């Protein structure tokens, strides 16, 4: 796979960068670009001294974490900065023309026809009140191209949308995320622009869909000879798709160069950190937990192995959830979200449930948490079936099983300061006195490596990583035995993600926690999990130890999931991996 990709890329560079008489001229050139945002606290620089060139037909990736200025830089190229943003220095040159301060009219001319855009989030980038076909048609019409129904259908089917003619008459909400992104790609490429700005075009999509979409985008831009400015936070993806990678950090370009070179020989400390912490298929289980496991295993070898076989903290058997979907005329149909799923979690280990969106993995998590009733089957916690628990027993159960959710922005109450957030579960369960609770909160903050001075702060004053640490501290407040992490690290930047995963591993070895880890990200699974269960459309299609599943996947579906991890196909020298 890696060779195939590399080979195609090499061929493309040769064919895709034609040398007109007079030597190649860059299609897009940003020279010493500086962008500032006017805020109530004065001007804030967002991008400083950014420099990049995109040759015709070339794919250039800008990599960086959120807030690094990568999107801002790209959006400035088509005059799409937010109202309070402006180019304060430097110049933007498109095809030899300085468009830094071009008139609104000129920019409108360039948009669509010369520079296209594929935005990040397919859910929010199509106008919900207009049909897909309408949104494609107006693009064609605005750029003076034929815009009959057949033209619209052609554009959509080129982007890989099946049955484009009738699909054009549907609204965005009738499309899946992948289909919407195809529609957005269709719109972005419909007027055959010479440059396509793809702003995280697949980060909101499942990994297998992501691969299809990116492959298709590759093929299309290659056929049309379109240059692509790809913005991504994923170094693996950038290296796999781009000829040239530009790394941005805190508004500045810190490193630029050919993709593979940058990955194998990163010079800037930030790039080095990024390469080191990028989870990939090659990474191994984070050590601290495992080491602890081995140590205790060595000491208690004969008894432990026997006990381990029995000591399953959670056992899920034939778990099924059927939802009733209301249809027209009051009829309802059954939808089986989870279909006879069985797995177990050994005490002190991590079991990961992986699958794409809609696979039912989050429903499993909700049922194990007791937040959603099961239609049939059983969930045994320490041998007791929680589906039969009464009110009081359930209250006790909640103390021993705690959740950490995906979105650290949504899962903390903005009106509660950090102290109150972490102390609340203790108070609800009537643990200790006010004094001892405060001591406990300090201890918890210490465990998640946050300063205790943070107690008086509010969630909006914290970064995403800090918030997730608070969420972990809250989950640990009641000394639970099991922690259920529902996509607990997927909203975080890669460096922060690595920190949180390390923290979770440390806490596991320290406190003997068991984790149920719900995720769509197989690279993360490799780092944190001891055993894996793969779900597809409500069914468990494969399970085993992490090594078994990754080294020797049994089903085609698992193989496809593994192959779809960005960067999976890259062949890296061993010292980097």
């Amino acid at each position, binding site marked *: 796979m890696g060779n195939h990709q590399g080979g195609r890329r090499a061929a493309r560079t040769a064919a895709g960068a034609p040398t007109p008489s007079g030597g190649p001229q860059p299609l897009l050139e940003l020279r010493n670009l500086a962008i500032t945002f006017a805020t109530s606290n004065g001007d804030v620089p967002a991008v400083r001294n950014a420099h990049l060139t995109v040759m015709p037909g070339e794919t250039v990736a800008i990599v960086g974490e959120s807030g690094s200025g990568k999107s801002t830089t790209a959006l400035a190229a088509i005059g799409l900065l937010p109202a309070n943003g402006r180019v304060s220095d430097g110049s933007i040159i498109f095809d030899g023309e300085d468009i830094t301060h071009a008139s609104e009219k000129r920019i409108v001319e360039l948009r669509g026809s010369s520079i296209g855009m594929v935005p990040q989030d397919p859910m929010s980038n199509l*106008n919900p009140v207009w049909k897909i076909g309408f949104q494609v048609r107006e*693009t064609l019409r605005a750029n003076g191209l034929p815009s009959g129904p057949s033209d619209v259908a052609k554009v959509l089917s080129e982007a890989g949308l099946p049955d484009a003619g009738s699909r054009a008459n549907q609204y965005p909400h009738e499309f899946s995320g992948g289909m919407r992104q195809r529609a957005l790609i269709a719109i972005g490429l419909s007027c055959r622009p010479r440059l396509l700005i793809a702003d995280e075009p697949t980060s909101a999509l499942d990994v297998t869909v992501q691969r299809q979409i990116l492959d298709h985008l590759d093929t299309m831009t290659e056929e049309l000879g379109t240059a692509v400015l790809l913005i991504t936070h994923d170094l693996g993806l950038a290296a796999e798709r781009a000829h040239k990678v530009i790394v941005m950090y805190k508004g500045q370009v810190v490193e630029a160069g050919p993709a593979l070179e940058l990955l194998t020989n990163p010079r800037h400390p930030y790039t080095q950190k990024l390469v080191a912490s990028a989870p990939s298929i090659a990474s191994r289980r984070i050590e601290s937990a495992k080491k602890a496991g081995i140590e205790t295993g060595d000491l208690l070898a004969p008894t432990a192995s026997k006990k381990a076989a029995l000591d399953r903290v959670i056992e899920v058997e034939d778990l099924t959830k059927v939802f009733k979907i209301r249809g027209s005329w009051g009829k309802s149909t059954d939808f089986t979200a989870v279909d006879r799923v069985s797995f177990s979690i050994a005490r002190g280990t991590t079991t990961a449930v992986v699958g794409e969106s809609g696979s039912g993995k989050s429903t499993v998590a909700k049922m194990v948490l007791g937040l959603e009733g099961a239609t049939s089957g059983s969930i045994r916690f320490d041998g007791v079936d929680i589906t039969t628990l009464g009110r009081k027993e359930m209250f006790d159960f909640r103390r021993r099983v705690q959740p950490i959710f995906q979105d650290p922005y949504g899962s903390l109450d903005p009106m509660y300061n950090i102290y109150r957030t972490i102390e609340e579960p203790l108070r609800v369960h009537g643990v200790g006195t006010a004094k001892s609770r405060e001591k406990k909160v300090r201890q918890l903050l210490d465990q998640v490596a946050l300063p205790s001075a943070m107690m008086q702060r509010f969630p909006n004053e914290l970064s995403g990583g800090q918030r997730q640490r608070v969420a972990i501290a809250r989950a640990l407040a009641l000394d639970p035995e099991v922690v259920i992490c529902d996509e607990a690290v997927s909203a975080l930047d890669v460096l922060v993600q690595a920190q949180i995963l390390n923290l979770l591993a440390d806490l596991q070895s320290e406190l003997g926690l068991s984790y149920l880890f719900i995720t769509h990200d197989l690279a993360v699974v490799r780092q944190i999990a001891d055993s894996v269960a793969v779900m597809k459309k409500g069914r468990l299609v494969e399970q085993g130890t992490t090594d078994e599943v990754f080294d020797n996947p049994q089903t085609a579906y698992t193989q496809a999931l593994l192959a779809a991890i960005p960067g999976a196909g890259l062949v890296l020298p061993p010292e980097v991996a």
Partner: protein
Amino acid sequence: MAWYIVRRFLQLIPVFLGATLLVYFLVFSLPGDATAAICGERGCTPAVIAGLREQYNLDQPFWIQYLLYLKGVVTFDLGTNFSGRPIATIIAEVFPTTAKLAIMALVIEAVFGIAFGLIAGLRKGKLFDSSVLVLSLIVIAVPIFVLGFLMQFLIGVKLQWTNPTVSGDATFTELLLPAVVLGLVSFAYVLRLTRTSIIENVNADYVRTATAKGLSRKRVVVVHVLRNSLIPVVTFLGADLGALMGGAIVTEGIFNVNGVGNTLYRAVLNGDGPMVVSIVTFLILIFCLANLLVDLLYAWLDPRIRYA
């Protein structure tokens, strides 16, 4: 969709029953003898009073009275008011004027409210936006009868651009001033609602994408910002239509408009029970229908909303 509309019409039945029962009960439990209102100062002979009581079922217990009234409504016989005129005729006489006034007020508040709100929203924080916001706040804060008398005095009496009061014919030009006064407060609300909604939508991702497609600024604003922003505004306008149709007691009073509001006001003063109950019931039905209309319009504006 058809099933949804049928269901909504079926829902009108309990609303109708509940409302009429409540209004009937309130009127019934008013202190004083209803016949005293008919007879006036001079009083009637006991024989006449007994006759009136029989005519209006006042000699029956509350439940019987109510059921007899319902029977009348179902057979399209609203009965007569205390002056002996058929109530249905009176409503048919005054309702067109109120409807005309309501629709004029609605058009004024919608057109000007949306236009001003759009401009203010697009120019957030600029001079136009700030001044319009202050003005709308004044309009909301000052009671309607102050505004009404003020405008009547300035435009009708001082400048004499139009008649200060409305004649029996209620022509378009005569109704213009009351319609402006009637729509003024809602205009301020529509303006503010549109403004907020525009500000919210103008930063939406799909608006940026639409711009990136190469659409002109005008098209982006009209097609992508305005339509999406109108969804909450339409809800407000629909509810307001129901309220306006009910007649504006104060405005109709100031400008002497012979509409539903004025008629209802007189009926309440006269203690004319049958008249009050009938008009209120009629208004409730109008209000429900206006709301149904809004919900259907809503589905048309926002295709994500599906009624089943």
